[in-house]
């Protein structure tokens, strides 16, 4: 009769202590899960800040190309004549947009806006080891709606650029953001 309470108390105490241990381990697992999420969130914030810097560089590269394109003639035909062109059918046909001949093989040799069409350039900004690739497309667009590509010649062309980082490659297959920019150019002539 005297032993039973002792045994009962020991058994009860042992059960309570096991529960405490299980609870502690569960809490530890729970906290570890939260910590993993926390570190993942911090890592993604770092990626966002890094991507913002990449996008600044991509934007400056794109606007530099746009600036160069805007300094060129509207079309090969308007570059080689001083006479005003009144009919858009006199311009380069849409299928022939791009460099005009073997001589126009570099940015310095380009003489009109659509020479950029089909071009792919890679650039490493000075002071960084990052590389950015830019793909160019030029099309005629509807003068009343610059979003609508025209299958025939018009007096408005649109240059579309896509710029993205090629080096360093993305970590763990995370897709790299691509910057898309467009600029329109209309034909005009001073008599």
């Amino acid at each position, binding site marked *: 009769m005297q032993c039973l309470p002792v045994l009962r108390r020991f058994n009860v*105490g*042992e059960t309570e*202590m096991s529960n*405490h*241990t299980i609870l*502690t*381990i569960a*809490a*530890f697992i729970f*906290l*570890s899960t939260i*910590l993993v999420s*926390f*570190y993942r969130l*911090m890592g993604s*914030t*770092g990626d966002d*800040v890094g991507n*913002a*810097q990449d996008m*600044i*560089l991509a934007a*400056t*590269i794109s*606007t*530099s190309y746009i*600036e*160069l394109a*805007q*300094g*060129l*003639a*509207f079309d090969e035909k*308007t*570059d080689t004549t001083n006479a005003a062109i009144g009919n858009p059918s006199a311009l380069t046909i849409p299928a022939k947009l791009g460099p005009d001949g073997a001589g126009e093989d*570099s*940015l*310095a040799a380009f*003489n009109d806006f659509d020479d950029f069409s089909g071009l792919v350039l890679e650039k490493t*900004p*000075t*002071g*960084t080891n990052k590389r950015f690739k830019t793909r160019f497309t030029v099309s005629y667009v509807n003068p009343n709606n610059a979003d609508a590509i025209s299958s025939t010649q018009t007096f408005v062309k649109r240059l579309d650029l896509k710029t993205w980082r090629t080096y360093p490659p993305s970590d763990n297959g995370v897709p790299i953001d691509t910057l898309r920019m467009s600029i329109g150019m209309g034909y*005009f*002539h001073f008599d």
Partner: protein
Amino acid sequence: MQYLLDYLASVILGAALIFVMINANDTAAENHSLYNGDMMVQEMLVQTAYLLEGELRNMGVGIPETQQSVLAADTSRIRFLYDMHRDGTPDTVQYYMGTTNEMIDTPNELDRPLYRRINSGQPLVVGSVTVFRLRYITRSGDNLPTPVISTSLSEIHSVEITMEVQNPFAMMRTPEQVKAGERIALYSSSLWQQTRLASQNTRR
């Protein structure tokens, strides 16, 4: 005995938890400083670049074709003309970088002011930069040596501007974290590089 083992286990686990939490807190504070510094620097860069690119975009506007738009061209200084107020009178705009001594109050030993001066007015600080480098390119893509001599100024077709902004305040690192050739302090930085035409409508 079982009580003791359980208490011991709880103390060990509790200590581990506290250690992990303190470590996480340190990491969070460090990363917050770093990301905040990065964002601040990017905002500073974009603000300065916004002004600079808007003005350089207008380089040569309202200037007769027979007149050159770039008046002086050096590695970190440019003076050019454009009709700022569209009143037929060309204005002279100058951008140049000051010296590091002018920003000696900041912990960053490389930052210096970027000045903008209109005509003969007082120069105004428009930003703080660590790099402000100009490259002058001819129509054929060649670089002109700087300072560009007066007879070559008319050859300038485009200007490449490289600008870097660093955080004036550093994030300190322990000596073990500093690699060979690196500065002791870690400064967030952001880079901007753009090419602008010296004159618009050169080839229409």
